[in-house]
């Protein structure tokens, strides 16, 4: 809402208040000011002047040399050369005198045009940033020729002459205060904020008083009272369509509304002043001398004022005559009954519609207007009548027509008054202040609340006041939010903190930083095409995503079921930036749709890792092992996994608990996928199921005493086929070693010609220890023999010679 300070002055006097202080004060009492603009600031040294003599420039076929009377204030007659063709001797024009400033950073200095001195410039309205709407009937391509009315204003600053000076304050009005989308509403806030009197005006309409009455023209019927609280109308005859006066045009302009003609301008003016949207119909276009407020028929066609065709449905309310819809209620009038230059009789509508209905109608028809944006916030039906009267008063003031006597006012159901108990003590306690009842009463009365029998009755235009807390807000915003003293909660102590799972997540992040991984954050929504990029099988369940019905674009249209594409995208970006040796992780969330329609998807945390440069499969495995260590998960099983097409089929593992619960999948990204993301080097990724990790984590630390007796180690070395997994060899050895077997560890792998193609030499150290004695050589040998026997029996392995 843009407020003209000149307009505001009609209602409350704050002329002595600095504009910055004004803006700050209103912000602190709840009407947030976004900023202010001083109009006319950029027009300096332009005066009203009369061309007293003009002659052709001797060296030009289009320039004129004018002698211009700029009045006493501007040193009398000045010579100005101009190329304009619409001027004449005696014309009253704006003259920019050196050094003058015009909008758009234009500076006018004295100079010479083809050798002839020119001491300034004559101005068009465009050069002063005005439009044809500000200067109706004036030529856009020539100098602005002012009417003879300006004869006594020669020498006057053009801003004063054309009423261009004003200060416009831009308010951001919250949706609960539609009453403040008006000059009067903001005047009320201004008055209470500064403790100044508010001068309200009751419109007075003389009427034509000629025996004619509105019933001769019109009947009104509300056929959908659930959507229309009130419909009031008056008729104006003998209308003389023309431009509205300068002051009205200026005020509309300050508020950001384009002046059109006197009748339309009046409706806009009243809307801005009272906050009540109005509409004017050309009476001659109404068929059947009646107005019906009814639901639209399904598929009914309607062309709005802006010449756009709409197809309506029965949820929408229209203002219709006997035959057709003439306006979309509360949104926009129809082209069929628009005010034209020839309009002779006008019907003014001032009505009140159900906010939610207007909102839906405007939304469906993609037509959010000044009117609909007010109605949708639920307006006060009681405001309709003063606004209607104000419009008719302005008609008479402007001489725009004769107001036919009589008013039609259909107001079937009045909203009941709201009564709120006046609880002084409770409000003080709630707010943490100590205010007197008298102080509260004073504020409430200034806000036009009535207090009867310890009940507060808010004015009907304050639909937002219903509860104690609403009243408390009114009091505290005027008293001052920042007067509240900061206190500490005087309440039961609560034990805050992270729960064990949350704490584990933090510990996990910290461990990963320690392992050299940088944390990333990526979008939860992706393109469904990203599943193709990681070669997800067409029949994979993970292709079924939660789909956003109104996405910004395809790239962000589904909620991811895997965070792998997000990770690969970030790796790709870093690779493109030539960042080397990148190691990343994300505490990602994936969204798995529910089988049951209507249920929320499962949101699962998946720790996603990604690396390239200076790493191999085992570097990633090392990180996974450390994660398992952090979760105190022992005996996790790593098995080769070739089922995930995103990964290299021979370099991918699945991690399971002993019990078979899946913890993670990791490995080298499939070369085709890596290439698709622009890599010609190996990329390693992992997806760790955080929920499973946590479920299987051991939080209990059980200390085992340190060994008292020495250990015996035995080294084994044998040649085995390349595809035999070290894990299975170790597993056999561990089982064979039994209780005495403390540790089985790989310490060397060797491949070479001496061993033979397709073979590898594996060296493993077994640590044997008894908890209750020092092992004898015989006992150690016995265990060793058992290990060798099992290796040969189960895996066919014999010691290397």
């Amino acid at each position, binding site marked *: 809402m843009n407020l003209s300070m000149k307009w505001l002055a009609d209602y409350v006097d704050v002329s002595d208040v600095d504009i910055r202080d004004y803006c700050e004060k209103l*912000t602190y009492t709840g009407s947030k000011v976004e900023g202010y603009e001083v109009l006319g600031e950029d027009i300096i040294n332009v005066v009203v002047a009369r061309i007293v003599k003009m002659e052709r420039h001797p060296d030009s076929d289009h320039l004129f040399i004018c002698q211009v009377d700029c009045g006493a204030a501007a040193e009398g007659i000045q010579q100005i050369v101009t190329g304009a063709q619409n001027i004449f001797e005696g014309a009253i024009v704006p003259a920019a005198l050196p050094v003058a400033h015009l909008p758009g950073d234009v500076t006018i200095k004295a100079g010479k045009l083809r050798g002839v001195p020119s001491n300034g410039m004559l101005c068009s309205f465009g050069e002063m940033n005005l439009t044809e709407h500000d200067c109706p009937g004036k030529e856009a391509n020539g100098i602005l020729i002012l009417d003879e009315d300006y004869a006594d204003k020669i020498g006057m600053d053009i801003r004063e002459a054309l009423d261009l000076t004003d200060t416009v304050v831009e308010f951001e009005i919250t*949706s609960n205060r539609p009453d403040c989308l008006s000059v009067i509403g903001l005047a009320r806030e201004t008055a209470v904020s500064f403790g100044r009197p508010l001068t309200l005006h009751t419109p007075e309409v003389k009427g034509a008083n000629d025996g004619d009455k509105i019933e001769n023209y019109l009947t009104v019927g509300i056929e959908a009272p659930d959507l229309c609280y009130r419909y009031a109308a008056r008729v104006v005859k003998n209308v003389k369509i023309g431009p509205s006066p300068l002051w009205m045009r200026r005020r509309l302009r300050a508020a950001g509304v384009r002046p059109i003609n006197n009748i339309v301008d009046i409706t806009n003016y009243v809307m801005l002043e009272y906050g009540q949207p109005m509409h004017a119909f050309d009476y001659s276009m109404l068929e059947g001398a009646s107005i019906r407020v009814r639901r639209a028929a399904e598929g009914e066609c309607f062309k709005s004022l802006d010449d756009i065709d709409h197809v309506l449905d029965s949820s929408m309310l229209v203002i219709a005559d006997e035959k057709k819809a003439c306006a979309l209620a509360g949104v926009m009038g129809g082209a069929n009954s628009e005010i034209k230059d020839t309009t002779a009789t006008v019907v003014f509508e001032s009505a009140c519609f159900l906010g939610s209905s207007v909102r839906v109608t405007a939304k469906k028809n993609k037509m959010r207007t000044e009117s609909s944006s007010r109605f949708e916030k639920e307006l006060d039906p009681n405001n309709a009548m003063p606004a209607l009267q104000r419009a008719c008063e302005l008609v008479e003031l402007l001489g725009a027509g004769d107001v036919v006597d009589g008013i039609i006012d259909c107001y079937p159901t009045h909203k009941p008054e709201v009564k709120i108990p006046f609880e002084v003590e409770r409000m003080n306690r*709630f707010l943490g202040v100590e205010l007197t009842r008298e102080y509260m009463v004073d504020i409430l009365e200034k806000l036009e609340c009535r207090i009867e029998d310890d009940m507060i009755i808010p004015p009907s235009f304050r639909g937002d006041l219903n509860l104690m807390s609403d009243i408390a807000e009114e009091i505290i915003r005027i008293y001052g939010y920042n007067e509240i003293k900061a*206190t500490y*909660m005087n309440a039961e102590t609560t034990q805050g903190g992270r729960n064990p799972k949350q704490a584990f997540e933090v510990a996990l992040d910290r461990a990963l930083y320690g392992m050299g991984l940088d*944390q990333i954050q990526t*979008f939860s*929504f992706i393109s469904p095409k990203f599943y193709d990029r990681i070669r997800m099988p067409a029949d994979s369940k993970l292709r079924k995503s939660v789909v956003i019905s109104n996405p910004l674009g395809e790239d962000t249209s589904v909620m991811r079921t895997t965070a792998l594409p997000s990770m690969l995208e*970030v790796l790709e970006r870093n690779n493109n930036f030539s960042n080397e040796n990148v190691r990343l992780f994300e505490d990602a969330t994936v969204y798995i749709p529910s089988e049951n329609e209507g249920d929320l998807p499962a949101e699962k945390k998946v720790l996603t890792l990604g690396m390239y440069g200076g790493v191999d499969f085992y570097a990633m495995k090392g990180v996974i092992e450390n994660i398992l260590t952090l979760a105190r998960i022992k005996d996790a099983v790593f098995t080769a996994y070739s089922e995930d097409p995103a990964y290299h089929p021979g370099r991918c593992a699945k991690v399971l608990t002993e019990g078979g619960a899946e913890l993670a999948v990791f490995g080298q990204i499939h070369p085709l996928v890596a290439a698709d993301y622009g890599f010609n080097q190996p990329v390693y990724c992992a997806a760790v199921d955080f929920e499973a990790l946590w479920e299987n984590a051991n939080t209990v630390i059980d200390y085992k005493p340190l060994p008292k007796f020495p250990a015996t180690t035995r080294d084994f070395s044998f040649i085995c086929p390349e595809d035999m997994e070290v894990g299975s060899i170790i597993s056999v050895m561990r089982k064979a070693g039994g209780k005495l077997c403390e540790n089985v560890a790989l310490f060397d792998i060797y491949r070479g010609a001496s061993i033979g193609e397709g073979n590898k030499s594996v060296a493993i150290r077994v640590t044997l220890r008894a908890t209750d004695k020092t092992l004898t050589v015989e006992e150690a040998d016995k265990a060793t023999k058992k290990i060798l026997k099992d290796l040969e029996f189960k895996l066919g392995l014999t010691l290397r010679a």
Partner: protein
Amino acid sequence: MSMKENLEQIRSEALAAIAADGADLEALRVKYLGKKGELTAVLRGMGQLTPEERPVVGQIANEVRADIEAAMTARKETLAAEALERRLKEEKLDVTMPGTAAKMGHVHPLNLVQRDLEDIFIGLGFSIEEGPEVEYDYYNFQALNIPEEHPARDTQDTFYITEKMLLRTQTSSVQARVMENKKPPIRIISPGRVYRSDAMDATHSPLFHQLEGLVIDKGITMGDLRGTLDTFAKQEFGSDTRIRFRPHHFPFTEPSAEVDISCFVCGGKGCRLCKNEGWIEILGAGMVHPHVLEMGGIDPTVYSGFAFGLGVERIAMLKYHIDDIRHLYENDVRFLSQF
């Protein structure tokens, strides 16, 4: 030469030899103290002495042996120390060369800020609640006093999944869930992702992070809200930080406020960061609306509470002077490694 003189001569010769440069201590030991050494040879002649002389010469002989041994030990130690020193000099490393340990990873600035905030409120007795990002319209809007067709819905451009399911636009959606599951005293924060259909630019992202706070108990006042946020602001932005409230409207709080902090760069004098205002808008807050309490099954005539919500990106960008929100989601390691 008497035996005594002989012994003295051996002593002085031996000590000189031990002290000489490049002395071969083992050879000297053999020469003087060995089985065939000079001292042993002298001692072998002891039998020729008179019984009176024997103990005197014997004592001298022992002294000479002890002196030579001590000198050898001392010399040995000196040589060892010198050798060590030489070796250590040769082992000198270039300490300016880089370390070889795996480089530390880095926390994402959003996680950094979020954890800071969590820790501040944990210190005030808050616990952390999590809620779904794909949420029912009910929890995101209706339970927050934003019925269908409420104009406030226009200001939050919502991503919908179905008519009744959406991507939450605010972490306030957790409020009603918490009230349904917990009885007062409630003192929780809820950090997480929220979604609005804003196209990405330097200051907007369709996905961002908020942190919601909710306190409900008997006798909670607006002064308590102020006190809590004051503590938060001082801990997060420095002990000189002041806060100010501006009246505002949120459907789920009444009274509602927008909260500014004094600029932590200029202290309120006005600078580029605060656009010369001296104040920076940081969060929205208010007293929980009675309707919201009622919908959560809590009696507003018995209990009161406050709620607040702040933007994690906004704080991260302010604190670390990040000029473009997109950096936070591009994850360029050159950016990440600064945190």
